[in-house]
C-alpha cells in the first residue's frame, strides 16, 4: 500500500518539480541576458513577496482569484472536459455581483447584501458555463472551441453593457456599491496595510475545501471522476454521462464566477472592464501544475501569484515581463512532462505477470 501511495505522489509531483527546474533555468538565462545576477534577483523576488507584509498581501490577493479559476478548470478536467472559458465566467460573475450590488438598497444590512451578491456571482458564472455544457451534450460541440469563442462574445457583451449604459463617466467601471463589501485584511491585520488582500481569500479556501469534498466524498463527485477516467465504465455503473458533463460545466463556471468577488466586492467595489486580467487563462496553468487537485491548486495559485507579484518587486533589475515568459515556460514544461513522466513510471514498474 505504501508503495502505491509513493507511486501516486511520484506521478503527481514529478511534473511540477520538473517545471520548477525548467523555470529556474530559464529565469537564470533571462536574468543574465539583462546583465544581472540570478541569485540577487531571486532573493529580491522572495523578499518582495513573502518577505514583507504588503507584498505577501498582494500575493494572497492575486492567489485568491487564481484559486477560483484553477478550481474551475480542474473540476472540468476531472470530468474529462476542458474549460477554457474561465476568463469570461469570472467576468460575468463579477459583473452580476456588481449589478446586484448597485440594485440593492443601501439600507440593506451589509452582510446580507454581500451574501446576495455572492449568489449573483455564482449564477453569473454558472450561466456562462452552462452554454458550452449544453452545446456539448446536445450537439457534441467541442467545449474547448466553444468556451474560447464564448469568452470573446461574453466579454464583448459586458463591454457593451458597461460602455453603453452603466459606466461612470471617464472610466470603464460601474458605480460603486453602497453597502460595502468584503473587508480588507488590513482591517484585521494592520501589517497588510495598502494591499488588496481581503476576506475573499477565506471564501476561496472554503471553495477549495468544498470542491475537495465534492470530488472525493460525494456521490456525484465519484461519478464525475469516473466519467473523466473511463466514461464507458461510468456508463456501466449507471452514470448519465451527459448529465455529468452538464453538471461539471455549470459548477466549473459557477466557481469561476465566484472568483469575481475578489475584485468587485473585496477590492474596488465596482466592476471594471478587463479586471479579469488573464486570470482565467492562468487558471489553466494553475490547474495543470496543481495536478487538478484542490490542494495542489491552492499551492499552484500561490506559486503563480508569487511570480506575478515578484515581477513587480524586481522590476528595477529585470523587466517584469520576464515573469510572463516564465509562466509560458512553466506551462509548456508541465504539459510536456505529464505524459513523459507517466510513461517512464509505467515502464519502471512493470505489472507482475500472473
Amino acid at each position, binding site marked *: 500500500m505504501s508503495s502505491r501511495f509513493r507511486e501516486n505522489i511520484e506521478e503527481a509531483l514529478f511534473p511540477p518539480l520538473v517545471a520548477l527546474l525548467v523555470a529556474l533555468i530559464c529565469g537564470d538565462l533571462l536574468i543574465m541576458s539583462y546583465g544581472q545576477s540570478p541569485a540577487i534577483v531571486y532573493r529580491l523576488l522572495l523578499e518582495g513577496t513573502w518577505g514583507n507584509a504588503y507584498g505577501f498581501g498582494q500575493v494572497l490577493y492575486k492567489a485568491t482569484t487564481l484559486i477560483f479559476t484553477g478550481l474551475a478548470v480542474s473540476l472540468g478536467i476531472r470530468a474529462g472536459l476542458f474549460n477554457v472559458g474561465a476568463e469570461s465566467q469570472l467576468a460575468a460573475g463579477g459583473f452580476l455581483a456588481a449589478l446586484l450590488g448597485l440594485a440593492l438598497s443601501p439600507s440593506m444590512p451589509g452582510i446580507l447584501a454581500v451574501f446576495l451578491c455572492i449568489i449573483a456571482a455564482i449564477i453569473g458564472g454558472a450561466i456562462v458555463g452552462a452554454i458550452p455544457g449544453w452545446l456539448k451534450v446536445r450537439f457534441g460541440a467541442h467545449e474547448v472551441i466553444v468556451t474560447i469563442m464564448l469568452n470573446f462574445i461574453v466579454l464583448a457583451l459586458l463591454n457593451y453593457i458597461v460602455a453603453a449604459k452603466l459606466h461612470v463617466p471617464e472610466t470603464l467601471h460601474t458605480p460603486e456599491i453602497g453597502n460595502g463589501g468584503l473587508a480588507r485584511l488590513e482591517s484585521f491585520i494592520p501589517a497588510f496595510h495598502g494591499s488588496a488582500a481581503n476576506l475573499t481569500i477565506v471564501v476561496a479556501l472554503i471553495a477549495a475545501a468544498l470542491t475537495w469534498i465534492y470530488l472525493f466524498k460525494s456521490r456525484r463527485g465519484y461519478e464525475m471522476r469516473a466519467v473523466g477516467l473511463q466514461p464507458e465504465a461510468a456508463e456501466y455503473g449507471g452514470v448519465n454521462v451527459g448529465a455529468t458533463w452538464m453538471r461539471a460545466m455549470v459548477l466549473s463556471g459557477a466557481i469561476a464566477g465566484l472568483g469575481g468577488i475578489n475584485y468587485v466586492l473585496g477590492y474596488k467595489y465596482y466592476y471594471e472592464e478587463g479586471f479579469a486580467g488573464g486570470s482565467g487563462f492562468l487558471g489553466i496553468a494553475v490547474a*495543470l501544475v496543481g495536478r487538478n487537485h484542490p490542494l495542489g491548486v491552492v499551492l499552484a495559485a500561490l506559486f503563480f501569484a508569487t511570480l506575478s507579484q515578484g515581477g513587480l518587486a524586481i522590476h528595477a533589475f529585470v*523587466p517584469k515581463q520576464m515573469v510572463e515568459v516564465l*509562466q*509560458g515556460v512553466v506551462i509548456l514544461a508541465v504539459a*510536456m512532462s*505529464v505524459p*513523459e513522466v507517466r510513461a517512464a513510471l509505467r515502464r519502471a514498474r512493470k505489472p507482475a505477470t500472473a
Partner: protein
Amino acid sequence: MNPISFLTQMIRIAVPYLFAASGGVIAERSGIISLSLEGYMLTGAFSATLGAHYSGSAWIGVLAGMFGGLIFGLIHAVASIRYRADQVVTGIAINLLAIGVTRFFLKLAFASSSNSPRVAGFGGNINAHGFDNPLLWMGLLVAPVLAFLVYRTPFGLRVRAVGEHPAAASSLGIKTSLVQYVAVAISGILAALGGVFLALDQHQFTDQMTAGRGFIAVAAVIFGRWDPVRAALACLLFAAAETLQIQLQGNQLIPSQFIEMIPYALTIIALAGVVGRAVPPAALGKAAE
C-alpha cells in the same frame, strides 16, 4: 460609404486573418490542434520589427518574422508530437509565451513597454490603399497556394491522410510524425507572416498588437470547415463585418461590440451543426503513434 474604400479596407483587415487561417488549416488538417496562431502572429510581428530595425530593410524583417514563427511552430510541434503534451494546453502556453517573450525583448531591445521605434516597412502611400505593400498581395495569394498544396501535391495528400487516419498512413510506410512536423512548421511561418504584415504595414510593433486576431483566424478555420478556400472566404466575411462596423462608426446602428461577436458566434453555430456540420479531421488532437 465608398465601395472602393470599403473593399480596400476590408482586404487590409483580412490579410492577417488570411495568413493565420491558412497556417491553421494546414496544421489542423495534419491532426495538430492550432490554438497558437495568435502566438505565432505576435512573434512574427515582433521578429519582423527587430529584423527591420537592425537591418534597415523591410524584407530582412520579413525573413526574421518567418524565422520567429518557425521557431515557435517547432516548439509547439516538439511539445505536441514528441512529448505528446495536451495540444490545447501547449497552444495556450505558446500564446502566453509569445506575449511574455515579445514584451521582454521589447524592453530589452527598445527599452519600452509599449512600442518599438519606427522601422522600415511597406506601403505608406495613401493613394495606393495598401496595394503597394507586397505582403498584401502575398496574403491574397496564400489561400489559393495553400489549396494547391493541400489538394494537388503528394505532401498535401499525406497531410490529409495523417489527419484523418494516421494508422492507415503509417501502414503504408509514411512517417506520420515528419508530416506533422512539416505541417506545423509551415503553419508557424504562415501565421507569423500575418503578424509581419501588421507590423510592417504600421512600420512599428506595439505591445499585443495582434489583439486576438489569431483567434478570429481559428474561428475562420472552423467556420471554413478546415478547407483553405472556405477558410479564406470566412476571413473575408469577418473582415467585411469589421470594416462595416468601422465605416458605420458614426451611425451607431448596431453597436460595435455586436459586430465584434460575429465571427465567434458564427463559429459556435457551425460547431453546433445548425447549418450543416463542421466536422474536424478525424485524428485532430490525438497524439500520433
